[in-house]
């Protein structure tokens, strides 16, 4: 078998696998979607009757407006404070070299690498001890723990791209540090801020473990509610649960559409070459 044929076979196998995976993924997602519109559905390829009642049902029983409000507030809070805190830190990482920088980087990597269950439980315990557990604030605070380092690691390369001599030349022309920030740095790293903000947004909305551990009944995000709904699916019709799932899916996918405008998909995964 010559080289070209073998290479083509590999490509074929590759595409088939990817295709299979994508097909299953589609199946998984659309099953949820179809089910949410089904009046009732059991062991047939498609439900016999369709309805949108379940959306109304889940709107009422799951208190969707409140959940959306919580999700929005948490997301906005994490994005805003996450960017605010990680922005200056990223600047320092990009611009300065100091003894112990590597150790500091490892510290900042920990909340991303250590699984959220592991540090989430002590974190939740601390929050409940100091009586802030169960509130929206605690959900925001908990999500910020991994998102601040996350933001730093996304923003740092953007700063590194801005040549140091640009700041030096602005200084020689008479600009104070504040003016340099205002007129040079900020405009030049706006794309980076956008990328970081969007990625933090997606990660926060999809976050389960941390939000789950620290939330209370009034501060559950969409995902948490979905979880409880599935968990207690004996008590709720699966179609209603799927309706809520669809709402969540639509939210995430519309965000993805926006993000993919600005960020290539490979950059959304934790970059190995950064280490």
């Amino acid at each position, binding site marked *: 078998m010559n080289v070209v044929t073998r290479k083509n076979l590999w490509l074929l196998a590759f595409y088939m696998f990817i295709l299979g*995976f994508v097909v299953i993924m589609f199946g998984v997602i659309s099953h949820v979607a179809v089910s949410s519109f089904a009046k009732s559905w059991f062991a047939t390829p498609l439900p016999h009757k369709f309805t949108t009642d379940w959306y109304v049902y889940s709107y009422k029983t799951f208190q969707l407006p409140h959940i959306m409000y919580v999700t929005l507030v948490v997301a906005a809070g994490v994005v805003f404070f996450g960017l605010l805190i990680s922005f200056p830190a990223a600047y320092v990482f990009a611009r300065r070299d100091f003894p112990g920088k590597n150790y500091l980087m490892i510290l900042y990597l920990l909340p991303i690498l250590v699984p959220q269950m592991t540090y989430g439980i002590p974190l939740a315990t601390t929050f409940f001890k100091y009586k802030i557990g169960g509130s929206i604030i605690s959900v925001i605070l908990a999500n910020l723990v991994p998102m601040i380092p996350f933001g730093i690691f996304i923003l740092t390369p953007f700063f590194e791209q801005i040549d140091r001599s640009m700041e030096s030349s602005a200084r020689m022309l008479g600009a104070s540090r504040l003016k340099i920030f205002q007129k040079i740095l900020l405009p030049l790293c706006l794309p980076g801020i956008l990328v970081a903000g969007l990625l933090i947004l997606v990660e926060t909305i999809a976050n389960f473990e941390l939000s789950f551990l620290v939330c209370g009944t009034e501060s559950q995000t969409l995902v948490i509610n979905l979880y409880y709904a599935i968990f207690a699916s004996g008590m709720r019709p699966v179609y209603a649960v799927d309706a809520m799932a669809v709402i969540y899916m639509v939210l995430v996918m519309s965000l993805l559409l926006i993000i993919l405008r600005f960020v290539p998909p490979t950059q959304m995964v934790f970059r190995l070459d950064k280490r």
Partner: protein
Amino acid sequence: MLRSLYFKLNFQYLDRTAFFFLLPSLLYLILFFIYPFIYGLVLSLTPEQGKPIYDNFHIFLADDWQRSTIWKTTRLAIPITLLVVVVSIPLAYTMRRGIKFERIVTTFLILPISLGTVLIAEGVLGFLGGNGWFNQFLIKIGLMKEPLRLTYNYIGVVIGLFMKNFPFCFLMLLGYVSGINPEIENSARILGARPMQVFWRIMLPLMAPGITIAFCLVFVMDFAVFPTAILLGQPANETRTIAIAAYQMAFEHYDMPKASAIAIIMAMTQMIGLVIILALRRRLYRGTSLGITKG
């Protein structure tokens, strides 16, 4: 005089600006990451009245049913990680120089990562459930007479985790292997190596660091598996992971000291797992380079 001092101070290694810029994030991590960790550690070493200091750990490890969570978790984490990494390597390798539809493929693969574990769980429950499309299809074409039990068991968790881990691992490895200078491969080919030889002798060793990192990350993620194990598995028994044990102790029994002990045991077993993986990698790597000199 004072101005010159001020100016000098401004430029020491970690000058004032840098210090204030780092402070918020550093403080935040110390307050909300390191402190809870230490607090948890102290709690775990706080036994009930009159018991020895390591009692919380002892209780967990002595209880068969609790201790078995370690094994159950490992039994989930290792095979899934192996499966995901072993499948990802050839796929990422094939795509290393870019393929047609690259953008579309990577976009589709981002979807399960962004949607998250909970949604995937719900979808899998429906799609691969007893009455879902997958089983309907198998029965319809006559491959099976009865639906396959793919959910609420070990297999369910494997599938659920695979759906999320595979794209993650694949994209990570793809990024890594794309970064390897293509000229290395070209020079090997010109020197007479066949594609398979190039892969085993040149590219795979070069990918080894990336593969190790991917393996460790996926392993760590899977070891801490929680919602998938509950929703898609059998949390009462077969897929009762150590995360579940920790959670139950904290939020069902409200026994924080014991829960912290379990969380610490979880962290330590993860660490041991990582050490073993890294040690194995060292052995494996030496073996590969031996192969090169022998050949």
